[in-house]
């Protein structure tokens, strides 16, 4: 009985892994394909990696995407933290329900609608006050901030609601003004949430195709937009090479983060055990 169940579990796990990773594996394998035709294997080669490094368009788009993602993540963390703090700590006030709704609306809004409405806003703004001039990096960044700050706000709010509020009260009780308490007590305590909020905003911006397509202008194509337009003309092995590099970067990032967290957790466990042992 037990044996049969474990066979079942193992095969289910194998199937699950296969389902998730075979597409990625085949992509990695074909990035080393000699042939220009993606579906025909013609021998091992790294020439597409060389071609990728020569491709100004893709490299430019990648650099642009990283810059936008960086600015977006930084601003979104600032704004999202403020929104999350207000929602978690200010108690009841007039317009709280409205603020909650407005903060979380971008989470459920279809991207097409967000993109279209932002495009209309930017066009109207330009004709009224002359800013933002044309569409490009600025408009993409603003558009990304509007939806990624919603995710940050939710992360910060949920983190704050699990932090004992009396810690902040204790700091006030000991003579620190509320603004100071926020910077020297609240922020350090929620710093893991700030980091994960920043990373999430960064990834979402890097990932976004739909909204960026609406609000970008000439000469400001982000990486997903370039990849998408290239794929429509037929999948190029260069894109496979690019995707492989991205997968490797992301995977090593995740493994590194996992190792660091594992270490920290082990150290923490050991400390706690020592404290308990010392007490007995």
């Amino acid at each position, binding site marked *: 009985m037990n044996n049969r169940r474990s066979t079942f579990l193992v095969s289910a796990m194998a199937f699950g892994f296969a389902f998730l990773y075979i597409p990625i594996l085949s992509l990695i394998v074909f990035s080393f394909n000699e042939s220009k035709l993606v579906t025909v294997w013609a021998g091992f080669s790294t020439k597409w990696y060389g071609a990728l490094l020569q491709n100004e368009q893709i490299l430019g788009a990648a650099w642009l995407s990283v810059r936008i993602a960086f600015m977006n993540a930084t601003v979104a963390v600032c704004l999202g933290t403020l929104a999350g703090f207000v929602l978690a700590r200010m108690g009841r006030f007039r317009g709280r329900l409205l603020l909650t709704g407005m903060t979380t609306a971008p989470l459920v809004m279809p991207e097409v609608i967000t993109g279209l409405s932002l495009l209309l806003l930017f066009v109207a703004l330009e004709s009224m006050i002359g800013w933002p001039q044309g569409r490009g990096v600025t408009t993409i960044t603003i558009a990304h901030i509007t939806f990624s700050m919603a995710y940050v706000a939710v992360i910060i709010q949920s983190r704050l609601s699990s932090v*004992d509020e*009396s*810690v902040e*009260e*204790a*700091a*006030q*009780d*000991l*003579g*620190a*003004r*509320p603004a*100071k308490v926020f910077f020297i*007590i609240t922020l*350090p*305590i929620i710093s893991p949430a700030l980091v994960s909020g920043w990373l999430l905003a960064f990834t979402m911006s890097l990932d976004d195709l739909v909204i960026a397509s609406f609000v970008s202008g000439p000469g400001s194509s982000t990486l997903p937009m370039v990849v998408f337009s290239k794929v429509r003309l037929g999948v190029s092995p260069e894109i496979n090479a690019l995707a492989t590099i991205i997968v490797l970067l992301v995977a090593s990032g995740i493994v590194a983060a996992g190792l660091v967290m594992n270490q920290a957790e082990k150290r*923490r466990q050991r*400390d*706690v055990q*020592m*404290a*308990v042992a*010392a*007490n007995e």
Partner: protein
Amino acid sequence: MADVKRAIENVEPWNDPQAQPYVRIENVTKMFGEFTAVDSVSLEIYKAEVFCLLGGSGCGKSTLLRVLAGFETPTSGRVLIDGVDMAGIAPYERPTNMMFQSYALFPHMTVENNVAFGLRQEGIAAAEISKRVGDMLDLVKLGPFAKRKPHQLSGGQRQRVALARSLIKQPKLMLLDEPLGALDKKLREETQFELINIQEELGVTFIVVTHDQEEAMTLSSRIGVMNAGEIVQTGTPNDIYEYPNSRFVADFIGSVNVFEGRIVEDQPDHVRIESQEAGCPLYIDHGVGVTSGSRVWVAVRPEKIEITRDKPAQQDNCAAAVVDEIAYMGNQSIYHVLLESGKKLRITRPNQSRTSSDSITWEDQVFVAWHPSSGVVLTA
């Protein structure tokens, strides 16, 4: 300094008409919407006192403490500390410090930095801070743990960090919310005495909130018993235990047997009460000053009732009973006996010798009796 000394020497300032209260709470009411958490509470607390607010959960004791700390604004009434009205003074400007139930230590700071936090806010020179922090850590016996973070400490050590962190500001008034609530029983008993030693050494005025009556009895100079937002009785632990003013207090502090009855004779030096439940005339050696025939309750503590096999000589305060249950607790035994009226009494007897001499056991016919001074007449 002279003030502190006098307050310590004067053991019962609340009985001294000359003494000036240090903390005055005047008709403080706190409403949350329609709910009244604190209902016109007035208290006078003297310097270097340990005053316990005792009550069940939701009785408003923690809210009152938060009003004193400045985290809640009273709906009406006012609070004076050392003669200064606290209205409009923010928590970070008050001469009070609070020790939170959860300790609320700063998790990202070492023990040393936790304790130094309050002094840093005052802008005191670094050299003086480190000296005072060192002294305080020695006082609470945490010197060797100065560089640790809170998660590297045991519960008892965290409790002492929290205490040190609030005491180092030398507050005029120290507020403690269930200070021993998170400790296990043995540690709690040790810590109670340490807490009082430190309090006496520094001469700080303590207001302690607790739901644990034993804790209140051992810690406090006086207790204020709270129920549904109101202070129902204020007094020394002895007053509260021996002379409760209502059935609520009698029942809340320790356990008690209550007989319902009617006054048949009320003299300045004694009362006689007729009680169906007791099945015997009740005689108490103090007057009550209520009209004859009015309904009253007589409370008798379990340890003040005697059980005997033979009928005692006294007529009053003596009834026949059957032993229903016996619980052996080690240091004492608890007897549940049934009176003829069906009323169940709880009686405790210390186990002075290893084997009980009269060996009263289940289903035995016995007599219960108590002294005229043991009962208390309650009118509410």
